[in-house]
Protein backbone atom coordinates (compact mmCIF):
# COMPACT_ATOMS: atom_id res chain seq x y z
CA UNK A 1 0.00 0.00 0.00
CA UNK A 2 2.92 2.32 0.45
CA UNK A 3 5.38 2.93 -2.23
CA UNK A 4 8.63 1.03 -1.89
CA UNK A 5 11.14 3.04 -0.05
CA UNK A 6 14.33 2.18 -1.82
CA UNK A 7 15.13 4.58 -4.57
CA UNK A 8 12.36 6.99 -3.59
CA UNK A 9 12.81 10.45 -4.98
CA UNK A 10 11.07 12.15 -2.07
CA UNK A 11 13.26 14.04 0.33
CA UNK A 12 13.43 12.69 3.89
CA UNK A 13 11.20 14.40 6.48
CA UNK A 14 13.52 13.69 9.35
CA UNK A 15 17.21 13.10 8.99
CA UNK A 16 19.97 12.33 11.43
CA UNK A 17 23.52 12.84 10.25
CA UNK A 18 26.61 11.58 12.03
CA UNK A 19 25.14 11.91 15.51
CA UNK A 20 27.65 11.22 18.29
CA UNK A 21 27.14 11.42 22.03
CA UNK A 22 29.43 10.19 24.77
CA UNK A 23 29.03 10.07 28.52
CA UNK A 24 32.58 9.99 29.75
CA UNK A 25 34.12 6.84 28.30
CA UNK A 26 30.79 5.39 27.26
CA UNK A 27 29.87 6.24 23.69
CA UNK A 28 26.08 6.06 23.62
CA UNK A 29 25.70 7.22 20.03
CA UNK A 30 28.46 6.60 17.52
CA UNK A 31 28.20 8.45 14.23
CA UNK A 32 24.56 7.55 13.73
CA UNK A 33 22.90 8.46 10.46
CA UNK A 34 19.36 7.57 9.50
CA UNK A 35 16.39 9.15 7.82
CA UNK A 36 12.62 9.02 7.73
CA UNK A 37 10.89 9.40 4.39
CA UNK A 38 7.32 10.38 3.59
CA UNK A 39 4.80 7.62 4.02
CA UNK A 40 7.04 5.09 5.69
CA UNK A 41 7.33 3.44 9.05
CA UNK A 42 10.95 3.21 9.96
CA UNK A 43 11.53 0.96 12.95
CA UNK A 44 14.52 1.28 15.23
CA UNK A 45 15.38 -1.86 17.15
CA UNK A 46 18.21 -2.95 19.33
CA UNK A 47 18.91 -4.79 22.58
CA UNK A 48 18.62 -3.07 25.93
CA UNK A 49 21.42 -0.64 26.45
CA UNK A 50 22.06 -0.23 22.74
CA UNK A 51 21.49 3.50 23.04
CA UNK A 52 17.94 3.83 21.75
CA UNK A 53 16.81 6.13 24.57
CA UNK A 54 19.84 8.37 24.12
CA UNK A 55 19.13 8.61 20.40
CA UNK A 56 15.46 9.49 20.94
CA UNK A 57 16.39 12.09 23.52
CA UNK A 58 18.70 13.74 21.01
CA UNK A 59 16.14 13.67 18.22
CA UNK A 60 13.44 15.06 20.51
CA UNK A 61 15.77 17.77 21.76
CA UNK A 62 16.13 16.73 25.40
CA UNK A 63 19.81 16.00 25.01
CA UNK A 64 22.39 17.88 22.97
CA UNK A 65 24.61 15.73 20.77
CA UNK A 66 28.38 16.10 20.90
CA UNK A 67 28.56 16.04 17.12
CA UNK A 68 26.22 15.61 14.22
CA UNK A 69 23.09 17.21 12.83
CA UNK A 70 19.36 16.71 12.97
CA UNK A 71 17.21 17.94 10.11
CA UNK A 72 13.44 18.23 10.18
CA UNK A 73 11.45 19.17 7.11
CA UNK A 74 14.49 20.56 5.37
CA UNK A 75 15.62 22.70 8.32
CA UNK A 76 18.43 21.99 10.65
CA UNK A 77 17.01 21.78 14.18
CA UNK A 78 20.09 20.53 16.04
CA UNK A 79 20.21 23.40 18.53
CA UNK A 80 16.46 23.77 18.92
CA UNK A 81 14.51 23.18 22.11
CA UNK A 82 12.07 20.30 22.45
CA UNK A 83 9.14 22.67 22.20
CA UNK A 84 10.52 24.32 19.08
CA UNK A 85 10.96 20.94 17.40
CA UNK A 86 7.42 20.03 18.34
CA UNK A 87 6.21 23.25 16.77
CA UNK A 88 8.25 22.43 13.68
CA UNK A 89 6.25 19.24 13.30
CA UNK A 90 7.83 16.50 15.38
CA UNK A 91 5.21 14.66 17.43
CA UNK A 92 6.43 12.18 19.95
CA UNK A 93 4.78 9.66 22.19
CA UNK A 94 6.47 8.52 25.36
CA UNK A 95 7.51 5.07 26.45
CA UNK A 96 5.86 5.65 29.81
CA UNK A 97 2.58 7.50 29.37
CA UNK A 98 3.25 11.16 29.84
CA UNK A 99 -0.05 12.92 30.29
CA UNK A 100 -1.53 15.52 32.60
CA UNK A 101 -3.23 13.07 34.90
CA UNK A 102 -5.50 15.51 36.73
CA UNK A 103 -7.03 16.78 33.50
CA UNK A 104 -9.78 15.18 31.51
CA UNK A 105 -9.07 13.17 28.41
CA UNK A 106 -10.47 15.99 26.31
CA UNK A 107 -8.29 18.58 28.05
CA UNK A 108 -5.19 16.58 27.24
CA UNK A 109 -6.18 16.45 23.61
CA UNK A 110 -7.07 20.15 23.60
CA UNK A 111 -3.63 20.87 25.04
CA UNK A 112 -2.15 19.22 21.97
CA UNK A 113 -4.39 21.22 19.66
CA UNK A 114 -3.45 24.37 21.54
CA UNK A 115 0.23 23.61 21.16
CA UNK A 116 -0.25 23.06 17.44
CA UNK A 117 -2.06 26.35 17.01
CA UNK A 118 0.24 28.37 19.27
CA UNK A 119 -1.22 31.51 20.92
CA UNK A 120 -1.04 30.06 24.43
CA UNK A 121 -0.95 33.46 26.10
CA UNK A 122 -4.72 33.90 26.10
CA UNK A 123 -6.04 34.76 29.53
CA UNK A 124 -9.77 35.28 29.30
CA UNK A 125 -11.77 33.16 26.87
CA UNK A 126 -12.39 29.63 28.19
CA UNK A 127 -10.28 27.17 26.27
CA UNK A 128 -13.13 24.66 26.08
CA UNK A 129 -15.32 27.31 24.52
CA UNK A 130 -13.01 27.45 21.53
CA UNK A 131 -14.82 25.34 18.95
CA UNK A 132 -11.92 24.97 16.57
CA UNK A 133 -9.67 23.59 19.30
CA UNK A 134 -12.28 21.24 20.69
CA UNK A 135 -13.23 19.92 17.29
CA UNK A 136 -9.63 19.21 16.46
CA UNK A 137 -9.17 17.43 19.78
CA UNK A 138 -12.36 15.42 19.38
CA UNK A 139 -11.34 14.36 15.89
CA UNK A 140 -8.08 13.01 17.28
CA UNK A 141 -9.89 11.22 20.10
CA UNK A 142 -12.29 9.70 17.60
CA UNK A 143 -9.40 8.52 15.48
CA UNK A 144 -8.09 6.44 18.38
CA UNK A 145 -11.54 5.51 19.66
CA UNK A 146 -11.56 7.49 22.89
CA UNK A 147 -14.37 9.88 22.01
CA UNK A 148 -16.76 8.38 24.55
CA UNK A 149 -14.31 8.84 27.40
CA UNK A 150 -13.60 12.51 26.67
CA UNK A 151 -14.99 13.75 30.00
CA UNK A 152 -13.15 11.20 32.12
CA UNK A 153 -10.19 12.13 34.29
CA UNK A 154 -7.05 10.87 32.63
CA UNK A 155 -5.90 9.20 35.84
CA UNK A 156 -8.95 6.93 35.58
CA UNK A 157 -8.00 5.57 32.16
CA UNK A 158 -6.63 2.07 31.82
CA UNK A 159 -3.07 1.59 30.72
CA UNK A 160 -4.08 0.79 27.16
CA UNK A 161 -6.37 3.80 26.97
CA UNK A 162 -3.56 6.05 28.12
CA UNK A 163 -1.41 4.74 25.26
CA UNK A 164 -4.23 5.56 22.91
CA UNK A 165 -4.49 9.04 24.35
CA UNK A 166 -0.75 9.53 23.86
CA UNK A 167 -1.24 8.81 20.18
CA UNK A 168 -4.32 11.04 20.03
CA UNK A 169 -2.39 13.97 21.48
CA UNK A 170 0.34 13.40 18.90
CA UNK A 171 -2.37 13.41 16.21
CA UNK A 172 -3.71 16.80 17.27
CA UNK A 173 -0.35 18.27 16.41
CA UNK A 174 -0.86 17.39 12.70
CA UNK A 175 2.85 16.69 12.57
CA UNK A 176 5.31 16.15 9.73
CA UNK A 177 6.73 13.14 11.53
CA UNK A 178 5.89 10.89 14.45
CA UNK A 179 8.48 9.75 16.93
CA UNK A 180 6.99 6.84 18.86
CA UNK A 181 8.78 5.31 21.78
CA UNK A 182 7.45 1.79 22.36
CA UNK A 183 3.78 2.53 21.84
CA UNK A 184 2.90 -1.17 22.31
CA UNK A 185 4.61 -1.52 25.68
CA UNK A 186 2.33 -3.18 28.18
CA UNK A 187 -0.59 -3.62 25.76
CA UNK A 188 -2.28 -6.97 25.61
CA UNK A 189 -2.41 -8.99 22.42
CA UNK A 190 -5.67 -7.49 21.20
CA UNK A 191 -4.61 -3.98 22.15
CA UNK A 192 -1.39 -4.42 20.22
CA UNK A 193 -3.27 -5.67 17.20
CA UNK A 194 -5.63 -2.72 17.20
CA UNK A 195 -2.80 -0.23 17.58
CA UNK A 196 -0.86 -1.97 14.81
CA UNK A 197 -3.66 -1.60 12.34
CA UNK A 198 -4.05 2.01 13.40
CA UNK A 199 -0.37 2.78 12.88
CA UNK A 200 -0.53 0.99 9.58
CA UNK A 201 -2.97 3.62 8.34
CA UNK A 202 -1.29 6.48 10.14
CA UNK A 203 1.83 6.44 7.98
CA UNK A 204 -0.14 8.08 5.22
CA UNK A 205 -0.62 11.15 7.34
CA UNK A 206 2.98 11.36 8.39
CA UNK A 207 5.88 8.94 8.53
CA UNK A 208 6.69 7.22 11.82
CA UNK A 209 10.02 6.59 13.45
CA UNK A 210 9.05 3.63 15.60
CA UNK A 211 11.06 2.32 18.51
CA UNK A 212 9.55 -0.98 19.48
CA UNK A 213 10.40 -4.15 21.34
CA UNK A 214 7.57 -6.15 19.90
CA UNK A 215 9.36 -7.91 17.01
CA UNK A 216 6.12 -9.20 15.66
CA UNK A 217 4.83 -5.66 15.26
CA UNK A 218 8.10 -4.37 13.91
CA UNK A 219 8.44 -6.96 11.20
CA UNK A 220 4.77 -6.70 10.27
CA UNK A 221 4.66 -2.90 10.09
CA UNK A 222 8.03 -1.48 9.21
CA UNK A 223 8.97 -0.49 5.71
CA UNK A 224 12.54 -0.24 6.86
CA UNK A 225 14.34 -1.33 9.99
CA UNK A 226 17.51 0.05 11.54
CA UNK A 227 19.38 -2.01 14.07
CA UNK A 228 21.23 -0.22 16.84
CA UNK A 229 23.92 -2.08 18.76
CA UNK A 230 26.35 -0.50 21.18
CA UNK A 231 25.51 2.96 19.96
CA UNK A 232 26.02 2.13 16.31
CA UNK A 233 23.59 1.46 13.46
CA UNK A 234 24.85 -1.85 12.18
CA UNK A 235 22.24 -2.34 9.49
CA UNK A 236 19.34 -0.56 7.81
CA UNK A 237 16.98 -2.08 5.30
CA UNK A 238 13.75 -3.85 4.62
CA UNK A 239 12.47 -6.51 7.00
CA UNK A 240 13.71 -9.22 4.70
CA UNK A 241 17.18 -7.75 4.48
CA UNK A 242 17.43 -7.36 8.22
CA UNK A 243 16.33 -10.93 8.76
CA UNK A 244 19.05 -12.07 6.45
CA UNK A 245 21.80 -9.86 7.82
CA UNK A 246 24.47 -11.97 9.45
CA UNK A 247 25.74 -9.19 11.71
CA UNK A 248 22.28 -8.54 13.00
CA UNK A 249 21.74 -12.19 13.80
CA UNK A 250 25.02 -12.39 15.55
CA UNK A 251 24.95 -9.15 17.45
CA UNK A 252 21.32 -8.69 18.15
CA UNK A 253 18.91 -11.50 17.65
CA UNK A 254 20.93 -14.09 19.48
CA UNK A 255 21.38 -11.87 22.41
CA UNK A 256 17.79 -10.80 22.33
CA UNK A 257 16.67 -14.39 22.71
CA UNK A 258 18.79 -14.67 25.79
CA UNK A 259 18.24 -11.26 27.21
CA UNK A 260 14.49 -11.16 26.80
CA UNK A 261 13.07 -14.56 27.42
CA UNK A 262 9.66 -13.08 28.08
CA UNK A 263 9.46 -11.64 24.60
CA UNK A 264 8.20 -14.84 23.05
CA UNK A 265 5.39 -15.42 25.46
CA UNK A 266 4.33 -11.87 25.29
CA UNK A 267 4.45 -11.44 21.57
CA UNK A 268 2.96 -14.76 20.54
CA UNK A 269 4.45 -15.09 17.11
CA UNK A 270 7.75 -13.53 18.09
CA UNK A 271 9.52 -16.81 17.62
CA UNK A 272 8.38 -16.92 14.08
CA UNK A 273 10.31 -13.84 13.12
CA UNK A 274 13.44 -15.21 14.58
CA UNK A 275 12.75 -18.57 13.09
CA UNK A 276 12.60 -17.08 9.65
CA UNK A 277 15.72 -15.14 10.28
CA UNK A 278 17.58 -18.26 11.29
CA UNK A 279 19.59 -19.86 8.54
Amino acid at each position, binding site marked *: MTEPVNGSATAPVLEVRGLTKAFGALVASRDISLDLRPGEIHALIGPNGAGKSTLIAQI*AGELAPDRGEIWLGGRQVTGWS*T*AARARAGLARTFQIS*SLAMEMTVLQNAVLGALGARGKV*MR*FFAPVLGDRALVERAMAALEAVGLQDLAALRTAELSHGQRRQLEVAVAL*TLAPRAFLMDEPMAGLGASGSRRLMSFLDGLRERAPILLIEHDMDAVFALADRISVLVNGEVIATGSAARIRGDARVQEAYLGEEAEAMPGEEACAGAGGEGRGEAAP
Partner: protein
Amino acid sequence: MGVRRETMVNTLLLAGLLAVPLWALWADEPFTITLATRVAILALAGVGLNLALGTGGLVSFGHAVFFGIGGYAMGILAFHAQNYTPLIESLSIPGTKSMPVIWAVAVIASALVALAIGALSLRTSGVYFIMITLAFGQMFYYFTISWPAYGGEDGMSIYLRNSFPGVNTLVPFNFFAISFAALLAVLVLVGRLMRAPFGLALSAARQNEARLRAVGIDPYRLRLTAFTLSGAITGLAGALYADLNRFVSPSMFSWQTSGEIMIFVILGGVGRLFGPVAGAALFILLEHFLGGISEYWHIFLGVLLLGVVLFARGGLIGLLAGREVAHD
Protein backbone atom coordinates in the same frame (compact mmCIF):
# COMPACT_ATOMS: atom_id res chain seq x y z
CA MET B 1 -21.45 16.64 41.32
CA GLY B 2 -18.21 17.53 43.07
CA VAL B 3 -17.99 20.63 40.97
CA ARG B 4 -21.40 21.76 42.06
CA ARG B 5 -20.62 21.09 45.69
CA GLU B 6 -17.41 23.08 45.50
CA THR B 7 -19.29 25.95 43.88
CA MET B 8 -21.76 25.81 46.72
CA VAL B 9 -19.03 25.87 49.34
CA ASN B 10 -17.38 28.79 47.56
CA THR B 11 -20.60 30.74 47.42
CA LEU B 12 -21.26 30.12 51.09
CA LEU B 13 -17.73 31.28 51.91
CA LEU B 14 -18.18 34.55 50.07
CA ALA B 15 -21.62 35.04 51.52
CA GLY B 16 -20.23 34.47 55.00
CA LEU B 17 -17.36 36.86 54.42
CA LEU B 18 -19.87 39.49 53.37
CA ALA B 19 -22.50 38.70 55.99
CA VAL B 20 -20.26 38.86 59.02
CA PRO B 21 -19.23 42.50 58.57
CA LEU B 22 -22.82 43.40 57.63
CA TRP B 23 -23.89 41.91 60.91
CA ALA B 24 -21.06 43.72 62.66
CA LEU B 25 -22.21 46.95 61.11
CA TRP B 26 -25.65 46.40 62.56
CA ALA B 27 -24.30 45.30 65.94
CA ASP B 28 -21.78 48.15 66.01
CA GLU B 29 -18.76 45.89 66.28
CA PRO B 30 -16.24 47.73 64.13
CA PHE B 31 -13.40 45.41 65.08
CA THR B 32 -15.20 42.46 63.56
CA ILE B 33 -15.27 44.43 60.33
CA THR B 34 -11.54 45.01 60.63
CA LEU B 35 -11.01 41.28 61.06
CA ALA B 36 -13.12 40.51 58.01
CA THR B 37 -11.16 43.10 56.04
CA ARG B 38 -7.99 41.38 57.11
CA VAL B 39 -9.34 38.05 55.91
CA ALA B 40 -10.25 39.54 52.52
CA ILE B 41 -6.82 41.11 52.06
CA LEU B 42 -4.80 38.12 53.22
CA ALA B 43 -6.99 35.90 51.06
CA LEU B 44 -6.08 38.14 48.14
CA ALA B 45 -2.38 37.64 48.89
CA GLY B 46 -3.05 33.91 49.02
CA VAL B 47 -4.92 33.96 45.70
CA GLY B 48 -1.80 35.51 44.22
CA LEU B 49 0.50 32.86 45.63
CA ASN B 50 -1.95 30.12 44.73
CA LEU B 51 -1.68 31.04 41.06
CA ALA B 52 2.05 30.30 41.13
CA LEU B 53 1.98 27.54 43.71
CA GLY B 54 -1.29 25.74 43.16
CA THR B 55 -1.82 26.11 39.44
CA GLY B 56 1.77 26.49 38.33
CA GLY B 57 3.46 24.22 40.86
CA LEU B 58 6.00 26.91 41.69
CA VAL B 59 6.65 26.62 45.42
CA SER B 60 7.69 30.19 46.14
CA PHE B 61 9.00 30.77 49.64
CA GLY B 62 9.55 34.43 48.84
CA HIS B 63 6.16 35.93 48.19
CA ALA B 64 6.66 38.26 51.12
CA VAL B 65 8.79 40.28 48.69
CA PHE B 66 5.76 41.23 46.64
CA PHE B 67 3.56 41.72 49.67
CA GLY B 68 6.20 44.06 51.07
CA ILE B 69 6.71 45.92 47.81
CA GLY B 70 2.99 46.57 47.60
CA GLY B 71 3.07 47.78 51.18
CA TYR B 72 6.03 50.05 50.62
CA ALA B 73 4.51 51.43 47.42
CA MET B 74 1.65 52.62 49.59
CA GLY B 75 3.97 53.73 52.40
CA ILE B 76 6.36 55.71 50.24
CA LEU B 77 3.70 57.42 48.12
CA ALA B 78 1.57 58.35 51.12
CA PHE B 79 4.60 59.40 53.16
CA HIS B 80 5.58 61.96 50.54
CA ALA B 81 1.99 63.12 50.17
CA GLN B 82 1.47 63.65 53.89
CA ASN B 83 4.79 65.46 54.28
CA TYR B 84 4.38 67.47 51.08
CA THR B 85 7.79 66.38 49.84
CA PRO B 86 8.34 65.35 46.25
CA LEU B 87 8.75 61.64 45.53
CA ILE B 88 11.52 62.20 43.05
CA GLU B 89 13.29 65.44 43.78
CA SER B 90 14.63 66.20 40.32
CA LEU B 91 11.35 65.58 38.53
CA SER B 92 9.26 67.00 41.37
CA ILE B 93 6.84 64.09 41.10
CA PRO B 94 4.60 64.30 44.15
CA GLY B 95 3.43 61.47 46.38
CA THR B 96 -0.23 60.58 46.45
CA LYS B 97 -2.98 59.54 48.84
CA SER B 98 -5.21 58.16 46.12
CA MET B 99 -5.78 54.42 46.41
CA PRO B 100 -6.23 53.69 42.70
CA VAL B 101 -2.91 55.36 41.89
CA ILE B 102 -1.21 53.57 44.78
CA TRP B 103 -2.63 50.24 43.63
CA ALA B 104 -1.42 50.80 40.11
CA VAL B 105 2.06 51.60 41.35
CA ALA B 106 2.01 48.61 43.73
CA VAL B 107 0.88 46.22 41.00
CA ILE B 108 3.37 47.47 38.44
CA ALA B 109 6.29 47.57 40.87
CA SER B 110 5.68 44.12 42.24
CA ALA B 111 5.08 42.73 38.76
CA LEU B 112 8.41 44.11 37.60
CA VAL B 113 10.25 42.70 40.60
CA ALA B 114 8.46 39.37 40.16
CA LEU B 115 9.49 39.36 36.52
CA ALA B 116 13.12 39.88 37.47
CA ILE B 117 13.13 37.40 40.35
CA GLY B 118 11.18 34.89 38.30
CA ALA B 119 13.46 35.19 35.29
CA LEU B 120 16.42 34.30 37.49
CA SER B 121 14.77 31.79 39.83
CA LEU B 122 12.94 29.79 37.19
CA ARG B 123 16.26 28.56 35.89
CA THR B 124 16.20 26.31 38.95
CA SER B 125 13.55 23.89 40.10
CA GLY B 126 12.46 21.84 43.08
CA VAL B 127 14.13 22.60 46.37
CA TYR B 128 16.50 25.00 44.69
CA PHE B 129 13.58 27.10 43.55
CA ILE B 130 12.14 27.15 47.07
CA MET B 131 15.46 28.27 48.46
CA ILE B 132 16.39 30.86 45.86
CA THR B 133 13.04 32.59 46.32
CA LEU B 134 13.67 32.52 50.06
CA ALA B 135 17.07 34.08 49.44
CA PHE B 136 15.55 36.94 47.46
CA GLY B 137 13.11 37.47 50.31
CA GLN B 138 15.94 37.72 52.81
CA MET B 139 17.80 40.19 50.60
CA PHE B 140 14.81 42.53 50.54
CA TYR B 141 14.25 42.05 54.26
CA TYR B 142 17.76 43.05 55.26
CA PHE B 143 17.79 45.82 52.71
CA THR B 144 14.68 47.48 54.11
CA ILE B 145 15.87 47.06 57.70
CA SER B 146 19.08 48.91 57.06
CA TRP B 147 17.76 51.42 54.52
CA PRO B 148 17.29 54.58 56.56
CA ALA B 149 15.34 56.74 54.11
CA TYR B 150 11.95 55.17 54.85
CA GLY B 151 12.24 54.31 58.50
CA GLY B 152 14.40 51.18 58.43
CA GLU B 153 13.15 48.64 60.92
CA ASP B 154 10.76 51.22 62.43
CA GLY B 155 8.76 51.27 59.24
CA MET B 156 6.43 54.13 58.42
CA SER B 157 3.12 55.23 59.85
CA ILE B 158 0.49 56.91 57.74
CA TYR B 159 -1.79 59.01 59.87
CA LEU B 160 -4.87 58.90 57.71
CA ARG B 161 -6.05 56.09 55.50
CA ASN B 162 -5.67 56.85 51.81
CA SER B 163 -8.64 58.01 49.80
CA PHE B 164 -10.80 56.38 47.18
CA PRO B 165 -12.93 58.51 44.85
CA GLY B 166 -16.44 58.80 46.19
CA VAL B 167 -15.91 56.63 49.26
CA ASN B 168 -15.09 57.62 52.83
CA THR B 169 -12.39 55.06 53.51
CA LEU B 170 -12.16 55.95 57.19
CA VAL B 171 -15.42 54.12 57.78
CA PRO B 172 -14.36 50.52 58.48
CA PHE B 173 -17.14 48.98 56.45
CA ASN B 174 -16.30 51.08 53.40
CA PHE B 175 -12.74 49.93 53.46
CA PHE B 176 -13.95 46.37 53.86
CA ALA B 177 -16.15 46.83 50.82
CA ILE B 178 -13.19 48.10 48.81
CA SER B 179 -11.03 45.16 49.84
CA PHE B 180 -13.82 42.67 49.27
CA ALA B 181 -14.46 44.10 45.82
CA ALA B 182 -10.76 43.82 44.99
CA LEU B 183 -10.80 40.20 46.15
CA LEU B 184 -13.90 39.44 44.09
CA ALA B 185 -12.50 41.06 40.99
CA VAL B 186 -9.24 39.13 41.27
CA LEU B 187 -11.12 35.88 41.93
CA VAL B 188 -13.15 36.39 38.78
CA LEU B 189 -10.07 37.21 36.73
CA VAL B 190 -8.03 34.30 38.08
CA GLY B 191 -11.01 31.98 37.69
CA ARG B 192 -11.26 32.90 34.02
CA LEU B 193 -7.54 32.66 33.59
CA MET B 194 -7.51 29.13 34.96
CA ARG B 195 -10.01 28.05 32.29
CA ALA B 196 -8.33 29.96 29.50
CA PRO B 197 -5.64 28.50 27.24
CA PHE B 198 -3.00 29.97 29.53
CA GLY B 199 -4.43 28.24 32.59
CA LEU B 200 -4.70 24.89 30.84
CA ALA B 201 -1.10 25.06 29.67
CA LEU B 202 0.17 26.29 33.04
CA SER B 203 -1.61 23.49 34.81
CA ALA B 204 -0.09 21.04 32.34
CA ALA B 205 3.35 22.49 33.07
CA ARG B 206 2.87 21.55 36.71
CA GLN B 207 1.45 18.09 36.04
CA ASN B 208 3.75 17.01 33.27
CA GLU B 209 6.40 19.28 31.88
CA ALA B 210 7.62 16.78 29.27
CA ARG B 211 4.12 16.55 27.83
CA LEU B 212 3.90 20.31 27.51
CA ARG B 213 7.19 20.52 25.67
CA ALA B 214 6.16 17.65 23.43
CA VAL B 215 3.15 19.61 22.20
CA GLY B 216 5.41 22.52 21.40
CA ILE B 217 4.80 24.80 24.39
CA ASP B 218 7.77 26.14 26.31
CA PRO B 219 7.01 26.04 30.04
CA TYR B 220 9.51 28.77 30.99
CA ARG B 221 7.51 31.63 29.49
CA LEU B 222 4.28 30.32 30.97
CA ARG B 223 5.77 30.03 34.39
CA LEU B 224 7.40 33.40 34.23
CA THR B 225 4.09 34.97 33.24
CA ALA B 226 2.31 33.13 36.04
CA PHE B 227 4.95 34.14 38.57
CA THR B 228 4.70 37.78 37.47
CA LEU B 229 0.91 37.84 37.67
CA SER B 230 1.10 36.09 40.99
CA GLY B 231 3.54 38.66 42.34
CA ALA B 232 1.37 41.51 41.07
CA ILE B 233 -1.72 40.18 42.87
CA THR B 234 0.19 39.66 46.11
CA GLY B 235 1.58 43.18 45.67
CA LEU B 236 -1.93 44.59 45.44
CA ALA B 237 -2.79 42.75 48.64
CA GLY B 238 0.29 44.27 50.27
CA ALA B 239 -0.85 47.78 49.38
CA LEU B 240 -4.30 47.11 50.85
CA TYR B 241 -2.83 45.51 53.96
CA ALA B 242 -0.64 48.55 54.52
CA ASP B 243 -3.69 50.74 54.21
CA LEU B 244 -5.60 48.57 56.66
CA ASN B 245 -2.87 49.02 59.25
CA ARG B 246 -1.91 52.51 58.08
CA PHE B 247 1.59 51.24 58.60
CA VAL B 248 4.38 49.42 56.76
CA SER B 249 7.54 47.82 58.07
CA PRO B 250 10.22 45.36 56.99
CA SER B 251 8.37 42.57 58.78
CA MET B 252 6.18 42.44 55.67
CA PHE B 253 9.28 41.11 53.91
CA SER B 254 10.21 38.49 56.52
CA TRP B 255 10.34 34.81 55.68
CA GLN B 256 7.63 34.19 58.27
CA THR B 257 5.30 36.32 56.16
CA SER B 258 6.08 34.14 53.15
CA GLY B 259 5.36 31.13 55.33
CA GLU B 260 2.06 32.55 56.50
CA ILE B 261 0.82 33.32 53.00
CA MET B 262 1.72 29.75 52.15
CA ILE B 263 -0.25 28.56 55.17
CA PHE B 264 -3.39 30.32 53.94
CA VAL B 265 -3.08 28.47 50.67
CA ILE B 266 -2.46 25.07 52.25
CA LEU B 267 -5.08 25.38 54.97
CA GLY B 268 -7.68 26.24 52.39
CA GLY B 269 -6.62 23.81 49.70
CA VAL B 270 -3.80 24.06 47.17
CA GLY B 271 -4.87 24.90 43.65
CA ARG B 272 -8.49 25.55 44.58
CA LEU B 273 -9.57 28.99 43.48
CA PHE B 274 -11.24 29.74 46.81
CA GLY B 275 -8.71 27.85 48.93
CA PRO B 276 -6.92 30.98 50.14
CA VAL B 277 -10.21 32.58 51.15
CA ALA B 278 -11.07 29.62 53.35
CA GLY B 279 -7.47 29.39 54.58
CA ALA B 280 -7.15 33.04 55.53
CA ALA B 281 -10.52 32.98 57.28
CA LEU B 282 -9.56 29.90 59.26
CA PHE B 283 -6.15 31.35 60.13
CA ILE B 284 -7.56 34.64 61.41
CA LEU B 285 -10.25 32.80 63.30
CA LEU B 286 -7.64 30.57 64.94
CA GLU B 287 -5.31 33.44 65.70
CA HIS B 288 -8.11 35.34 67.31
CA PHE B 289 -9.71 32.46 69.12
CA LEU B 290 -6.67 30.43 70.22
CA GLY B 291 -4.69 33.60 70.91
CA GLY B 292 -7.32 34.50 73.48
CA ILE B 293 -7.11 31.14 75.20
CA SER B 294 -3.37 30.71 75.59
CA GLU B 295 -0.22 32.62 74.89
CA TYR B 296 1.17 29.32 73.64
CA TRP B 297 -1.40 29.18 70.85
CA HIS B 298 1.25 28.60 68.22
CA ILE B 299 1.48 25.03 69.50
CA PHE B 300 -2.14 24.43 68.56
CA LEU B 301 -1.67 26.16 65.25
CA GLY B 302 1.30 23.89 64.58
CA VAL B 303 -0.62 20.75 65.44
CA LEU B 304 -3.53 21.79 63.27
CA LEU B 305 -1.28 22.58 60.35
CA LEU B 306 0.44 19.24 60.74
CA GLY B 307 -2.94 17.55 60.76
CA VAL B 308 -3.97 19.27 57.54
CA VAL B 309 -0.75 18.37 55.76
CA LEU B 310 -0.83 14.76 56.92
CA PHE B 311 -4.49 13.90 56.77
CA ALA B 312 -6.47 16.50 54.85
CA ARG B 313 -4.51 17.18 51.72
CA GLY B 314 -7.30 19.03 49.98
CA GLY B 315 -7.35 21.56 52.80
CA LEU B 316 -10.56 23.02 54.13
CA ILE B 317 -12.24 23.23 50.73
CA GLY B 318 -11.21 19.66 50.08
CA LEU B 319 -12.85 18.56 53.34
CA LEU B 320 -16.05 20.42 52.58
CA ALA B 321 -16.34 19.86 48.86
CA GLY B 322 -14.77 16.46 48.50
CA ARG B 323 -12.12 15.28 46.13
CA GLU B 324 -10.93 17.58 43.43
CA VAL B 325 -12.59 17.23 40.11
CA ALA B 326 -11.11 18.25 36.81
CA HIS B 327 -12.25 21.66 35.73
CA ASP B 328 -14.75 21.48 32.97
